[in-house]
């Protein structure tokens, strides 16, 4: 831990585009051999209906807190160099990026696994809402990740520094033993606390 941990979380107010290059630059480092990124973009259709735009809103201070918390959780499970997480608010037109995650690590497996964990965790725990606007109506969306975890949210101190439940993976990697998130354990966190 000679290197200072670098984590950046941002909620961007309406009309601010996500500058992916900025976040990739932020997580870049000479000692990091890999950068994994995820960009969530607005699809043009949902169940056959034509989507005009998505409108996002957030409980901003809590969302920031939850995003920091999930980054800490990721760090406790993987060996990461830097993390950047950004989410846009307001109207996001079709084709534009609403969420972006960039993770760097010495070896790629940590960054790739942590990146997937972070977007799943964001969708399950960070208080951000989106309304899908169609040509003939609108609807508040619901993330299945949230629905599955809803009953444990109030019990586990999520967004208050809860540790991630991980299990040593039995999968072989080039770099020896690693941890991976056990999906079933994640769904059964109600029995564990940090």
């Amino acid at each position, binding site marked *: 831990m000679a290197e200072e941990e670098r984590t950046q979380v941002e909620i961007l107010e309406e009309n601010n585009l996500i500058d992916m290059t900025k976040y990739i630059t932020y997580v870049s480092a000479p000692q990091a051999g890999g950068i994994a990124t995820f960009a*969530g973009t607005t699809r043009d259709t949902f169940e056959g209906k034509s989507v005009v735009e998505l409108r*996002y*809103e*957030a*409980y901003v*201070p*809590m*969302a920031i*807190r939850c995003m920091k918390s999930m980054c800490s959780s990721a760090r406790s499970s993987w060996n990461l160099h830097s993390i950047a997480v950004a*989410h846009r608010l307001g109207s996001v037109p079709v084709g534009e990026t*609403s*969420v972006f995650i960039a993770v760097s690590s010495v070896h790629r497996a940590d960054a790739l696994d942590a990146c997937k964990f972070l*977007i799943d965790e*964001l*969708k*399950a*725990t*960070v*208080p*951000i*809402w*989106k*309304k899908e606007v169609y040509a003939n109506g609108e609807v*508040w*969306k*619901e*993330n299945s990740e*949230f*629905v599955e975890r*809803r009953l444990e*949210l*109030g*019990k*586990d*101190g*999520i*967004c*208050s520094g809860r540790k991630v439940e991980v299990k040593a993976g039995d999968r072989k990697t080039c770099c020896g033993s690693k941890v991976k998130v056990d999906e079933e354990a994640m769904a059964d966190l109600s029995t564990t606390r940090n």
Partner: protein
Amino acid sequence: MDVTDREIKTKNAECKPAENKGSSVQIKVLFFARARDLTGLTELPLELSSGSTAQDCLNKLVARFPSLEEILGSMVLALNEEYTNESVIVQDKDELALIPPISGG
């Protein structure tokens, strides 16, 4: 917001008169997304007797906004920016948020 707040305080008076200090707490309730649509409010000051739980707050809110029933089975609560459950006791100046199903990403 001023007009709304004043109206709210007046209406709240019938729910729970502000007795003497110490026997009641005043919290702020926040409404997001569907919860805001249903109540027409982004926030609401709420006065409760000391020792009231988040569930007591919910009961009071539903009495005032019956349409909130729609999301009671799918939402969660956050107290002072952390997820919580209905049995927690609210303190003076707490911020209680109704969190309808989230949909970030």
